[in-house]
């Protein structure tokens, strides 16, 4: 074994030097019609000597005196081998690959199959589309490209996570993410730490470099994923990376530069100053009063008093016009805080090899600077893929990649230290940057610090000045990850194959975050400071043994079977040390903390499975597939940890039966499938434990964490374990039609699916008066139904000009039919005031919160004072799932130019703009600025049923703060007031590219040079008042539809160059 490897490597090295050549062979390569074929690989077998054919199909190659074998290879055509002998001219006519031509997809466990032979829905994604999307996060690159796949980015901050869902949500407490498989090995796509406060943390698919991808296939229903077991209960994204092709080394280098700016931001007012009604009169109150509101007098009625000693503004305090120094008061634009972001992405790859050993090596580096000062993310990837033919029966593949990623992340969300919170609540009369803006202000300490080291902010330290946040509340993460696999493939005979594959995905995520000591100018301490270290490690090891057999029983019937065994183990640990009460400022090391508490958590999970898949093809017309799998899971009770599920699908190619292959309907296949897949329990759900004690129960402040008072303490967990748990089961019925129309000019793929998930493992809330708050149970039923349509149309193909259109359309509905008996809702994410929940009888993830009282006809009830009444009962106030989504791509190409544009449409899908409610409450929003001196007659009925006609002021200072429409319903108003329609139409991608013509390429001795310019998110049309409605506060979580001081999204402009030689 070793010797062959060594010899191959040696010969590879030797062969890379140009040998003494003896004679020349020339010739021409044509296709089956006689037309010349350029770019065909002509190779001297068992060497790296080779050359591509030119634009006319001609080639010229130097060969040794004693001849050899010439190989002619071109994608889509059958490879030919010709003995050179003593010939000097060898012309070859290549024939297209018959019968097996057609779209090749990679199915479960990495088995390539012909899409025409499949009875279930499966979709390919063009890897070039992933690269040209110019997204840092691979998941974002999938946006609006595949029917049935929904991608929601959490925000535009560098390294932010994105939520991916295939066919809606099936699980309440478990994961709804599809499985990501890289080269046949499941990899980790988890994310952690995306809460309602804190920073945007990444999901781990961000470590995959899109430039390494050779193919990506999306598997959608149980029929497609039954072979991957429970981890693929929500679908699977199968990715294969590039393999080397034998031949001389090919080098590809690409570089790209992108500029980013914010694409949408809430509208703020610039007319009214900081302050509130005092004694019935709007009064200016400066930062020294700690006043958070902007209900002060009009800015146009104020001027400065010129007191240069005034702590918060060297221009002085604000006083009524005529009593100061004559310099009029001004409003400051808060969006001056942001800077231009940019991304630089460089990649290089080398591949080549002989028939015995092929290699692919790549390295890439991406650096992204965010639009928020001091925000950045970077990623370095290195990959080596080797494929070896050890003997003519045994092949081996080895692949390893190392990734280092991480960045400097900025606080956001419900967080007194969050950038958006501090920025949007900032009063227009306060100059956040103290004379500077953007990065210049962030770098100048006098924008956020007063002379004595206390904080300079519009509320004197109560909310952090965003310039303070980006400097004094650092968050850095550093991930080191290794993904590797080794596989051995043995051809037992010409119809049986045995494969063994072992894969590993191991990463360490080190996070360091801190909050500096925060004092107000009057000496009051706002934050004693804290430093936290966290080290998370994850180790996944996956073994597969797969036996495949292919046999033609007779000329009409072909059978192939796959039998396999899988074993997977995952260990996840977290070690953390948290220090509170810092001694000195600007020192973010644990040594600076007075009290340090350390903790350690370990979790382990194992799965093993046995599966079989049988495929029957009859007369190339009828296709039948059956798969069955049995899984054993460590998270289910020992007595009941084995479960079996199966799937069956069938397809009938109608046109084959009727012997049609042209005309209006040149190809039509009907397909139907039924499948089941299971999902196991969350960790440690089968037993009840004691936890490290914590005394809580407030809701505004933290609790006491033990060890404390010099003692350690434990208390019984309020979650009751259940040793009778069963696995969750999802059953899907799917029907579909694949058609080619008008002689193949139009392709259409329509699918309808109906899935039901039962025996949800839910942590059911029980009355706390039982002494427990949660009981893990099997209960509940969720149904998912939808339509997926993919279409493509070759609109025009005239000479050098082509115009292609491709579109996808998704309509899906996820309804929580039942929950456990007596349980009406379960919270998924959010706040006690407004949250995303599962509610019996309502769509999954419904937005739940407070609203106005309504009568039986849906009219709002108005009280005697003329204002709408609040409903004391909280209820569903919005549905965050869209009615439908669509993506439309147009591609025009003329000679060497290509222009492509992708339009993304979403109809429906509510988003709760918590940000809007708060900026209305504080009076910094444009809405509250425009309306505050107006009166209104609220539409509704009085208690006696008569129509309301009373005109009331929105915000009359005479009534004080309590009568203000945006203050009287509490902090941020009622949930219902801030739920908005998140529909949009956006121009997601536009790319113009130019491939250098053959003539120039030959002169430069390059194989390919491509220059392109593109734009991302260039245009967005939506009625949503906040940031870009494609946002989610809690990242890749089960709850969605919440926007509470989320970071804004960006639009980008890019140019790139790629060279192959």
């Amino acid at each position, binding site marked *: *074994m070793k010797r062959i490897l060594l010899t191959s490597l040696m010969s590879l090295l030797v062969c890379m030097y140009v040998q003494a050549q003896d004679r020349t062979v020339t010739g021409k390569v044509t296709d089956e019609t006689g037309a010349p074929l350029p770019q065909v690989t002509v190779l001297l077998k068992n060497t790296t000597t080779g050359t591509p054919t030119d634009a006319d199909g001609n080639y010229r190659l130097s060969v040794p005196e004693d001849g050899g074998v010439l190989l002619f290879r071109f994608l889509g055509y059958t490879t030919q081998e010709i003995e050179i002998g003593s010939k000097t001219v060898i012309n070859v006519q290549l024939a297209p690959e018959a019968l097996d031509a057609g779209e090749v997809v990679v199915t479960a466990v990495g088995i390539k199959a012909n899409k025409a032979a499949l009875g279930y829905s499966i979709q390919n994604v063009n890897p070039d589309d992933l690269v040209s999307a110019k997204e840092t996060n691979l998941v974002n690159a999938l946006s609006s490209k595949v029917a049935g796949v929904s991608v929601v980015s959490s925000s535009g901050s560098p390294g932010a996570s994105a939520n991916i869902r295939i066919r809606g949500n099936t699980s309440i407490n478990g994961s709804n993410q599809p499985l990501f498989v890289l080269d046949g090995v499941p990899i980790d796509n988890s994310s952690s730490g995306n809460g309602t406060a804190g920073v945007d943390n990444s999901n781990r698919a961000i470590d995959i470099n899109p430039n390494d991808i050779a193919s990506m296939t999306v598997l959608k229903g149980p029929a497609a994923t039954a072979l991957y077991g429970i981890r693929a209960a929500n679908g699977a994204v199968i990715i294969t990376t590039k393999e080397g092709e034998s031949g001389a080394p090919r080098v590809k280098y690409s570089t790209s530069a992108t500029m980013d700016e914010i694409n949408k931001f809430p509208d703020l007012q610039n007319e009214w100053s900081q302050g509130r009604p005092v004694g019935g009169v709007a009064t200016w109150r400066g930062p020294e*009063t*700690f006043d*958070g509101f902007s209900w002060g007098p009009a800015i146009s009625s104020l001027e400065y008093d010129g007191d240069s000693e005034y702590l918060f503004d060297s221009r002085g305090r604000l006083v009524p016009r005529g009593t100061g120094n004559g310099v009029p008061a001004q409003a400051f634009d808060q969006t001056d805080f942001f800077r231009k972001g940019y991304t630089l992405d460089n990649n290089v790859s080398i591949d080549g090899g002989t028939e015995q050993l092929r290699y692919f090596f790549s390295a890439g580096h991406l650096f992204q600077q965010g639009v928020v000062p001091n925000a950045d993310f970077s990623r370095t990837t290195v990959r080596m893929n080797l494929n070896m033919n050890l*003997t003519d029966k045994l092949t081996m593949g080895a692949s390893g990649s190392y990734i280092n990623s991480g960045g400097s992340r900025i606080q956001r969300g419900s967080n007194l230290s969050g950038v958006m919170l501090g920025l949007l609540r900032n009063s227009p009369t306060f100059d956040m940057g103290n004379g500077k803006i953007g990065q210049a202000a962030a770098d100048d300490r006098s924008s956020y610090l007063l002379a004595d080291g206390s904080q300079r902010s519009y*509320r004197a330290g*109560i909310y952090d000045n965003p310039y303070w946040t980006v400097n004094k509340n650092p968050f850095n993460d550093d991930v080191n990850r290794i993904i590797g696999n080794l596989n*051995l493939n043995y051809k037992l005979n010409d119809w049986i194959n045995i494969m*063994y594959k072992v894969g590993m995905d191991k990463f360490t995520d080190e996070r360091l975050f801190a909050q500096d000591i925060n004092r107000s100018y*009057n*000496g*009051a*301490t*706002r934050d004693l400071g804290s430093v936290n270290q966290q080290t998370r490690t994850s180790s996944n090891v996956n073994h597969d*043994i797969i036996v495949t057999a292919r046999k033609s029983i007779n000329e009409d019937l072909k059978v192939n079977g796959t039998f396999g065994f899988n*074993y997977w183990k995952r260990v996840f640990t977290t070690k953390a040390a948290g220090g*509170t*009460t810092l001694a000195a400022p600007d020192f973010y090391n644990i040594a600076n903390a007075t*009290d340090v508490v350390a903790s350690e958590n*370990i979790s382990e999970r194992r799965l093993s499975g046995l599966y079989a898949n049988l495929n029957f093809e009859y007369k190339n017309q009828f296709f039948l597939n059956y798969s069955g799998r049995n899984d054993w899971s*460590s998270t289910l009770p*020992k007595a009941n940890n084995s479960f079996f599920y199966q799937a069956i699908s069938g397809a009938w190619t109608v046109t084959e039966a009727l012997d049609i292959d042209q005309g209006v309907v040149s190809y039509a296949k009907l397909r139907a499938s039924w499948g089941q897949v299971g999902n196991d329990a969350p*960790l440690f759900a089968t037993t009840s*434990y*004691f936890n490290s*004690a914590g*005394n*809580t*129960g*407030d*809701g*505004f*402040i933290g609790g*006491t*964490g033990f060890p*404390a*008072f010099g*003692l*350690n*303490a434990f*208390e*019984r*967990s*309020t979650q*009751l374990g259940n040793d009778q748990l069963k696995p969750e089961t999802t059953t899907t019925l799917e029907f579909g039609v694949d058609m080619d129309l008008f002689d193949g000019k139009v392709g259409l793929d329509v699918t309808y699916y109906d899935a039901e998930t039962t025996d949800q493992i839910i942590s059911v*809330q029980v*009355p*706390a*008066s*039982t*002494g427990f*708050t949660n*009981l893990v149970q099997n209960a509940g039923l969720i149904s998912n139904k939808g339509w997926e349509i993919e279409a493509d149309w070759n609109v025009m193909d005239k000479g050098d000009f082509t115009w292609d259109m491709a579109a996808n359309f998704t309509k899906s509905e996820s309804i929580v039919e039942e929950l456990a008996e007596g349980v009406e809702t379960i919270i998924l994410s959010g706040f006690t*005031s407004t949250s995303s929940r599962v509610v019996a009888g309502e769509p999954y993830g419904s937005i739940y919160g407070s609203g106005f*009282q309504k009568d039986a006809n849906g009219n709002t009830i108005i009280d005697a004072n003329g204002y709408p009444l*609040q409903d*004391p009962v909280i209820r569903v106030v919005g549905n965050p799932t869209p009615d439908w989504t669509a993506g439309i791509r147009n591609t025009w190409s003329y000679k060497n130019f290509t222009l492509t544009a992708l339009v993304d449409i979403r109809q429906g899908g509510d988003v709760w703009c918590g940000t809007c409610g708060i900026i209305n409450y504080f009076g910094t929003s444009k809405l509250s600025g425009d309306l505050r001196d107006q009166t209104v007659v609220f539409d509704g009925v009085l208690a006696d049923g008569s129509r309301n006609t009373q005109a009331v002021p929105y915000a009359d200072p005479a009534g004080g*703060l*309590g009568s203000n429409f945006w203050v009287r319903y*509490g902090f941020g108003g009622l949930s219902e007031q801030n739920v908005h329609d998140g529909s949009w139409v956006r121009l997601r991608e536009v790319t113009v590219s130019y491939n250098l013509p053959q003539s120039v390429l030959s002169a430069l001795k390059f194989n390919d040079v491509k220059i392109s310019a593109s734009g991302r998110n260039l245009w967005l049309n939506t009625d949503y008042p906040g940031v870009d409605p494609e946002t989610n506060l809690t990242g890749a979580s089960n709850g969605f539809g919440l926007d509470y001081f989320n970071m804004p999204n960006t639009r980008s402009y890019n140019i790139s160059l790629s060279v192959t030689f």
Partner: protein
Amino acid sequence: MKSYKKLFLSVLALTFIMSSCDLEESNVDPSRPLSVNLNLILPSTLGQTAYNQMALPARQPGIVMQYLTGIDAQQVAYSENYLFTENTFNNYWNFGIYGGVLKDGRDLIALGTEAEQPYYVGIGKILMAEAFGRLTASFGDVPFSDALLGTESLKPAFDTQEQVYDGVQRLLDEAITELSKAAVAGGPAGDDLIFSGDAGLWIQTAHALKARFLMHLTKRRSVYGTVLSELGQAFTTAIDEPRFQWESAITSANPFAKFGIGRPNTLAINPGFGQAMTTRLDPRASKYFELDGTQYNFHNSNNTELIWAQNASLIPLISLVELKLYEAEAKLMTGDAAGAQTALTEAVDASMAQIGVSDAAAIAAYKTAYADLAAGATDQDKLNIIITEAYYALYGHQMHTAWTNFRRTGFPAMTPAANGAGGLDPSGAIPVRWLYPSGEQQTNAVNVDAAIANQGGALLDDNTWAFR
């Protein structure tokens, strides 16, 4: 070739072997124990009791009784609009009481009985009684006899408030019995953060709590005689109070101080309270709050005078001051006017000592003006003097008791918030109870609805049985 086959097969075999290991051992959490000793449960039970006394369940009565007022964020809605919703007390009910003190107390009792440790059983019962008493005073009918049974009763029925108060007295009696037994090796010691295992002191505390919870029922029953007899068996010097010592580290600091640090400038002293203390020349004023311009603040990290708002405050769970005030009231209402006056004077002295006021002249002047029962013509007037003094003495550490005093006597008279009327408080009156938390409503709907019907309503202005 053969060597490849061997390698291949051995790898296959290895994989099979590895996977046939017992899967279940992966599902045991190595970072959490499955059972613990009594001495590891007690500190948490005591800590949660002390936390409940100074956290949300104290601040909200503080707002209602106009000690505190909201000046920003949600606190404004609490003060000006009485927006105490069904979400406000979810965490308290779930994690402070039922999932907190009561859950741990039940474990102390069960494990203590099994291990034959009567002192743990006794202390557990005392802490459970205190929690139930406080709970029923705020919420009316609550689950008591059917509670804390886990899967045996997943929808606990609600007992009437009267039954709960009787149950509280019973628990305290049982506690006294347990604590009167002989000491057993391995009993509470260092883990008892309050008395270090001294059963005698716990017995006195139990009597003090009996007195307090009997006093809750003055409108419904004649309790004064029993109260005096209980007070006779409770502690008589301040040093014997059950006191909890908080720490300066932020994770184990006094919740009242933590609120001032973590939610700055959202809650301040009610200007009426501040001005009243100033007008009365109350010597305790500088220890309760500081004046910053026009705003009275209850917290300032740099002001170590504010005794109830320090990180490391020493908080009595029940103080001598409270007992003396009960004594004064009981003696007054049973005809012992002289005894009442003595008790009142002692109460004031105890309060001044507790707060750390040493100016004898100021104290004397204060007592003459505000602690002289002769200034009251009728018994009700005299009661007003006692309860008003209680109002000023209980700021910070027993605001919940001041609220109970108001509900059962109507003293001191105060005006409700101007904009308090709304869906939760139709009459706009000063709230006299809390709404049942939404968590309990959603998971135990039938029983909650039955309890509400039984009490004729459970909005903020619907009086509970004890205070009707």
